[in-house]
């Protein structure tokens, strides 16, 4: 038996992704590429109105289209007619009322996708249009019409931390806004449902959490869990946008109804209506500080637009409150965080999960405060930096390394980039330097890793060691979703290191093994990594005891993180498992006459606990920064009167390679005492403080307040 140190491609090594080259060459099979004999195609009819009563649905003309096999409405949903991650408030297919533009009303299966879409257009729905409720502030007031039985306030989290805010030498206040960002994953929602002989159904699906999808769908189908089997299909990105069910139930309904395999694939436009987005936010902040720069108190009011259905809004609302102050020591704070229902597109999980919105606001406030105190903004941040043992506003102490000061020092001390002759606009030839001003900005942020507020979060791994032609082979089976983050290499690396066996096979993720929890909240390497580690150790123990592999050794283990608590009425409680921190410095060139920005460089420092796969760490950090840069400068779903105006990649702009600057990276590996290998989730922190760093740099260049992201050229030039 080999020892831990000998094995190649174990943890800590930059192992290449097995799907990397196939993806680049276009050979990887995404969920949209699946095919089955005799397969039908599903299509969805969606509401054109943000709010309307559904008076009647006439499917006769659609059914009469040759090639159509089924046209289903809410009446055909055999089980529970609604689903949802936290509240079952979202109809599988609309009944009584539609509450947002794009809400599914009926589904069609036909022998050709175009026939299915054509038939869907033949369904006649009589709507009585209602005035949409689109202003979240109005939704919060008693005067607004309730969109759901419980009213429009989805959640309010109040945090009372320390004594009542009192004296301060300097007070700064500000109002900030974040627009609606989209995950913009490249692989649209898609899956293939195959009816089974036992009356059940198998669904091959691109998702983030197989078991929770399966549980929701089984309830809607009125089938026992064992008859609804989900297998992960090739995922083309997720970023939170696949946490909610989209076409899962629809495809299964159609397959069970027709007795034929049914494939559904959204187009790009439909995808914008097919998943939840990042919550738009309006935030009001007041910071009080002493003359020496120490923070005295903070008041914050956060209002999130949850859109038509709950999704994970209440957790996002709570997170926004928990991380409202940033990674700073604040003796006293009063925080109100609200999320409301409106008739805007539903919002839910997206990379950063509530911490993105508030980081934009608290970092703007820190810069304002630095200016008011005539202090260097990095100095001000370092003076107030949290460290291990500092108290969260929710009362509990930070229990892990919290190198806020060190991260800021690292990005601050990096040499600044020289001019390289490039200008904003690039080949668009708008300037030869006229109007161009350089700016530098800093930001730091943090968030929780894993699920909070008392959720018993766990993952399951089954590991099997066998001998194949005299060579040991390890098979790792979990339900954990590889969504592009690199879990597929990490699971194999752990098995190699733990068992000293190089030959590791990671089996397809499915519901034939216990839940792995979601590939979200920067948690999957921590949680499923922990489960794989535990299962490997059990196998190893057995192997050492027996001294031989024999006819195979198998172990299944769950990994649970330590239990957390719910927040009490004053927002107090040990609600979070652990935390991840990152800092960013952005250098930008702004054409101050045209309001065009070129990001010259991003420097970042992040504590990852343990770099399980350094190459993948770098990839996550650079990708996360691109998404943060996108929110700062261009990414917004424009919604007017409840209607989306830019549901396409023509007008929803995401950064291209020419917008993405070089990233200078410092990775710290301060082991977490409470996680496998000391690792800490890395997916979200790059997205959190990169946005405010870019905005701070643009502020420095333009001298303007810039209260809203994404920045618009008009705001940058003061039009």
């Amino acid at each position, binding site marked *: 038996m080999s020892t831990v140190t000998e094995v190649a491609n174990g943890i800590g090594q930059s192992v290449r992704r097995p799907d990397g080259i196939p993806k680049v060459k276009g050979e990887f099979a995404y969920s949209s590429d699946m095919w089955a004999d005799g397969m039908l195609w599903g299509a969805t009819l969606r509401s054109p109105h943000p709010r309307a009563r559904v008076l009647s649905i006439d499917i006769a003309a659609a059914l009469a289209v040759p090639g159509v096999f089924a046209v289903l409405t809410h009446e055909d949903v055999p089980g529970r007619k609604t689903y949802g991650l936290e509240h079952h408030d979202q109809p599988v297919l609309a009944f009584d009322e539609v509450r947002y533009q794009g809400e599914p009303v009926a589904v069609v299966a036909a022998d050709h996708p175009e026939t299915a879409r054509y038939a869907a257009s033949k369904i006649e729905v009589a709507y009585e249009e209602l005035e949409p409720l689109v202003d979240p502030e109005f939704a919060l007031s008693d005067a607004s019409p309730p969109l759901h039985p419980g009213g429009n306030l989805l959640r309010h989290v109040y945090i009372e931390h320390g004594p009542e805010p009192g004296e301060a030498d300097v007070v700064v206040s500000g109002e900030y806004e974040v627009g609606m960002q989209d995950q913009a994953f490249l692989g649209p929602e898609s899956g293939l449902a195959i009816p089974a002989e036992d009356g059940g159904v198998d669904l091959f699906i691109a998702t983030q959490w197989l078991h929770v999808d399966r549980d929701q769908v089984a309830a809607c189908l009125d089938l026992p869990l064992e008859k609804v089997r989900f297998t992960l299909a090739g995922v083309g990105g997720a970023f939170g946008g696949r946490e909610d069910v989209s076409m899962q139930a629809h495809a299964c309904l159609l397959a069970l109804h027709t007795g034929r395999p049914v494939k559904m694939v959204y187009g790009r436009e439909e995808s914008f209506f097919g998943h939840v987005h990042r919550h738009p936010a309006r935030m009001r902040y007041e910071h009080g500080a002493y003359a020496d720069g120490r923070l005295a108190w903070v008041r914050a009011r956060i209002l999130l637009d949850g859109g038509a259905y709950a999704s994970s809004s209440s957790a996002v609302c709570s997170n926004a409150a928990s991380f409202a102050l940033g990674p700073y020591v604040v003796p006293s704070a009063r925080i109100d965080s609200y999320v409301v229902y409106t008739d805007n597109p539903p919002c839910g999980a997206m990379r950063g999960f509530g911490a993105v919105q508030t980081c934009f606001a608290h970092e703007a406030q820190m810069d304002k405060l630095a200016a008011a105190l005539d202090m260097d903004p990095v100095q001000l941040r370092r003076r107030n930096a949290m460290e291990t043992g500092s108290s969260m506003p929710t009362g509990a102490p930070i229990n892990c390394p919290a190198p806020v000061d060190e991260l800021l020092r690292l990005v601050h001390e990096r040499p600044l980039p020289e001019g390289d002759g490039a200008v904003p606009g*690039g080949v668009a030839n708008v300037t030869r330097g006229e109007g161009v001003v350089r700016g530098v900005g800093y930001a730091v942020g943090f968030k929780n890793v894993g699920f909070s507020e008392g959720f018993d979060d766990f993952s399951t791994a089954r590991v099997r060691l066998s001998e194949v032609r005299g060579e040991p082979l390890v098979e790792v089976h979990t339900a954990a979703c590889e969504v592009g983050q690199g879990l597929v290499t990490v699971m194999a690396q752990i098995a190699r290191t733990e068992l000293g066996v190089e030959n590791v096979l990671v089996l397809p993720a499915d519901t034939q093994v216990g839940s792995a929890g979601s590939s979200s909240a920067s948690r999957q390497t921590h949680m499923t990594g922990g489960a794989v580690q535990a299962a490997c150790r059990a196998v190893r123990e057995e192997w050492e005891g027996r001294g031989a592999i024999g006819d195979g050794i198998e172990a299944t283990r769950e990994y649970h993180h330590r239990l957390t608590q719910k927040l009490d009425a004053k927002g107090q409680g040990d609600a979070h498992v652990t935390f991840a921190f990152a800092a960013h410095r952005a250098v930008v060139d702004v054409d101050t006459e045209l309001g065009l920005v070129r990001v010259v460089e991003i420097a970042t420092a992040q504590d990852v606990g343990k770099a399980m796969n350094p190459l993948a760490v770098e990839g996550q950090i650079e990708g996360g920064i691109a998404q943060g840069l996108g929110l700062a400068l261009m990414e917004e779903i424009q919604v007017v009167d409840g209607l989306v105006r830019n549901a396409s990649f023509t007008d929803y702009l995401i950064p291209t390679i020419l917008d993405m600057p070089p990233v200078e990276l410092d990775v710290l590996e301060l082991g977490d005492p409470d996680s496998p290998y000391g690792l800490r989730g890395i997916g979200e922190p790059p997205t959190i403080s990169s946005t405010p760093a870019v905005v701070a740099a643009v502020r420095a260049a333009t001298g303007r307040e810039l209260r809203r992201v994404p920045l618009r050229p008009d705001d940058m030039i003061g039009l």
Partner: protein
Amino acid sequence: MEFLQPPGWREALEARAAHPDALPIWGGTDVMVELNFARTRPAALLDLTHVPELSRWESEDGGVRIGAGVTYTRLIAELGDRLPGLAMASRTVGSPQIRNRGTIGGNLGSSSPAGDALPPLYAAGASVEVASVRGARRIPIDEFIVGPKRNVLGEDELIAGVFVPVRDDAAQQFAKVGTRNAMVIAVCSFAVDVSEGRVGTCIGSAGPTPIRAREAEAFAASAAPEDAAAREFGELVAAAASPIDDVRGTAAYRRHALSVLARRTITWAWETRCA
């Protein structure tokens, strides 16, 4: 859907005459988008990529005649010295894939006010050559395009190419504002073409068609090349635009940005001519 693929220009014109409901296609970078979104359902496609005459360009008296099937990549590589303004505009189109596939004829055929090849053609005073089995004619470009995505191409006509005048010592510029650094539809754009006694201009993406700023042209043709004149020129260009608010930008921003682009580009053009 029928698919017609004539092997030469004469056959193409005959096919066009016989199938007035066939939609011409070259690079397909506009057509395929329309088809994918089911915005058009033509009875037939008339594929022109096998017509060798269309992908040629040649010098003519006083200018260059460019076949409709010449791609952006080729405009940049082969005509960059003679038509620098058109090459600058071509560099801003889409991505390498789009520039390899998309053509000047397609941009004319689409007649979008945001078509990036159009402003330099307007500024140079180009004319569009259209042909049918009945014969060929040349139409000044600003008479060819008559509205957003509308032109005067007859039912039986195809775009053969475009004639672009080349003037001695002309200085040309093109600048485009977009909210990211590549792959972006113009929020607004501006082309200027300065030669002895003549200034040509065109505003892109700030009106129902590309627009020539005639007053600005007349002013700049006789103005001394100084900062104040460049500024005045910028104001006149901005005044000639008729922008709207849409998802890509506000009317106020477009007007402002055009004054900046016009001021900067005429300054660069003057510098080139003085050098």
